[in-house]
């Protein structure tokens, strides 16, 4: 058996694959953040809480309405997306003209409140949510045992990322969006309802977070803290990719998942820090991020 840096090659391949799977979550979450930041100029610190809400809504749909995972995959993002629309209409929209910092503080506070409400209601140790029967089981890849569900997560994440990119870059509504970030007043003068466009964009970004939450529910403990564990890493991903760059956040998400996966083999103690080391280096060399425009 060949060794690479003292690690057996099969084990290393396995770790690369696992890194890619975690990267799928980073990519999905940072995608939503990048969309919101790119279009609205709001740093959405409530993103982790909205991710958590997605997982909780999936659990509630099963527990109270008897609707399974597949329904949750559609309904949870819709419901949480509507919640996002209400937040945007009632609160966030008032801050567009102010400095980024206000939006950050508001969404940060909203995130804490949402987390606190769920913690009060459901406790901190979490709720059980099972892998849907159609996706349970695993493939034996020879070098490792690959759960079907994790393969599904990567596939869905890739489809979602490409889909979002296509909508923004190739469709008419995407071109309106891009135009209104450049010059909202001019776009409005052409008769396009820019505030409504902003609202829908925020709702869509939040729905993406909730979608990732539903994907995460069968793998991670569904608990109120589940978002705050991920969100800091995801922010680093967005910063490294370049604030607001959709392609950048997707590629960086997958890439950093792999870097983190390798760190877990070679020096596990640093696996939570390595992403921030990369962030510091990237910021020094390219302050606008890898794919950002200076």
């Amino acid at each position, binding site marked *: 058996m060949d060794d690479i840096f003292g690690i057996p090659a099969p084990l290393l391949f396995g770790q690369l694959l696992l890194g890619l799977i975690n990267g799928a979550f980073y990519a999905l979450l940072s995608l939503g953040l990048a969309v919101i930041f790119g279009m609205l100029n709001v740093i959405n610190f409530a993103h982790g809480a909205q991710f958590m809400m997605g997982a909780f809504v999936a659990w509630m749909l099963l527990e109270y309405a008897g609707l399974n995972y597949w329904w949750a995959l559609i309904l949870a993002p819709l419901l949480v997306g509507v919640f996002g629309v209400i937040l945007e209409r009632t609160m966030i929209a008032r801050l567009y003209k102010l400095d980024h910092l206000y939006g950050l503080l508001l969404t940060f506070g909203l995130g804490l409140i949402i987390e606190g409400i769920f913690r009060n209601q*459901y406790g901190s*140790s979490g709720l059980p949510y099972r892998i849907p029967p159609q996706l349970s089981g695993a493939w034996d890849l020879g070098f490792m*045992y690959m759960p079907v569900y994790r393969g599904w997560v990567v596939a869905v994440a890739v489809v979602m990322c490409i889909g979002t990119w296509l909508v923004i870059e190739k469709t008419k509504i995407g071109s309106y969006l891009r135009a209104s970030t450049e010059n909202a007043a001019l776009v409005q003068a052409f008769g396009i309802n820019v505030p409504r466009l902003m609202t829908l964009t925020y709702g869509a970004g939040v729905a993406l977070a909730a979608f990732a939450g539903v994907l995460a529910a069968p793998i991670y403990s569904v608990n109120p803290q589940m978002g705050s564990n991920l969100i800091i890493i995801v922010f680093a991903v967005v910063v490294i990719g370049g604030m607001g760059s959709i392609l950048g956040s997707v590629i960086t998400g997958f890439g950093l998942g792999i870097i983190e996966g390798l760190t877990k083999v070679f020096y596990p103690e640093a696996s939570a820090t390595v992403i921030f080391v990369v962030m510091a280096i990237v910021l020094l060399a390219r302050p606008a991020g890898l794919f950002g425009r200076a």
Partner: protein
Amino acid sequence: MSRIDRRALLGATAGAAALGVLPGRRARAQAANTIRIGVMNDQSGPYRDIGGPNGVMMAQIAAQEFGNGRGFNIEVIGADHQNRPDVGVNIARQWYDQGVDMILDVPTSSVGLAVNSVAREKNKVYINVGAATADLTGPQCSPNTAHWVYDTYMLAKSTGGAMVRAGGDSWFFITADYAFGHALERDTTAFVRANGGRVAGGVRYPFPATSDFSSFLVQAQASRAKVIGFANAGADTINCIKQAAEFGITRRGTKLAALLMFIADVHALGLESAQGLVMTESFYWDLDDRTRAFSRRVQPRLNNRAMPNMVTAGNYSATLHYLKAVADIGVAASKVSGIEVMNRMKGLPVEDEAFGRGTLRQDGRMMVPSYLFEVKSPAESRGPWDYLKLLQTTAADEAWRPLSEGGCPFVRT
């Protein structure tokens, strides 16, 4: 960045709220006649369901049952230490300086050890219930401190010993990288080796920033160890067990050892995922008629109608025992010297509905039997909270680290 910021914000709020409960300069005579108990634990993070608000409530229940009619008043307050030693030390200093006589609970070993030195410095009473590290009655023991319901040695001996006897003679550890994880790994390793087993490897992962354990589980499997030992707690243990099932690790014959598990964790995992795991506790609500009666009596007052667990029941038991000692030596003497109260606590037999009879040893170790349980299958369970079946009981004098091996400096053996 933000995790620290948000927790600092929470802490400031919680600290202010906790201090707000203390009366300012109200009637000094009354203050001198009031015993104040401060319950410090995790109210907002991963260990909230182990103690948290229910831990405070159980101390309040004990205080109410003990009653105010013994010539002094009792006041119970709570605060959130957010699992951070610096926050815990600050609250402890403020509390002790402002008239709190006893600090209770303090889960998370790093915080538990930090508060230990504050109590000694101020000569107050400190009863740790929620933290696991056996160092509290070992190298870091203090004449002001008691350690109530469990520790890493007792868990390692019971769960670890049982796994090795069942044939699990090679181990791989997945360890939370802080004081608690290290202590649990160290104590379990000693038992594995003493029983003829070996340690094939291990990883230490950053706490609390890790939620995906698949990488470590795959490494554990590659080591070909027969047992994967989880030296962690709470949501981390839950994620480990969930993901081990996902990666088919148990189906291939590898055994999982959740070295510290609480009934709240079983509740969160669901019996489908948790069945067959073995775990060690010193209290279970369904142990006998006494614990059943006790648990049914207190359950309606707890958040989410949770059953009392080892730690919340421990808060009840410790509060009651402390108050007995205070009543015995008098409030004035109790306020002068924490060591005096502690010595009296060591002289009195521990007796309450939750734990039955126990003794408080010279080094601060509370001695009760430990119980090895297996998690029931969904078919065996009759409903919510009916989760465990008793496998084995270890007598109080066998369950804990012998006094002579602890290395406690002030104890002469």
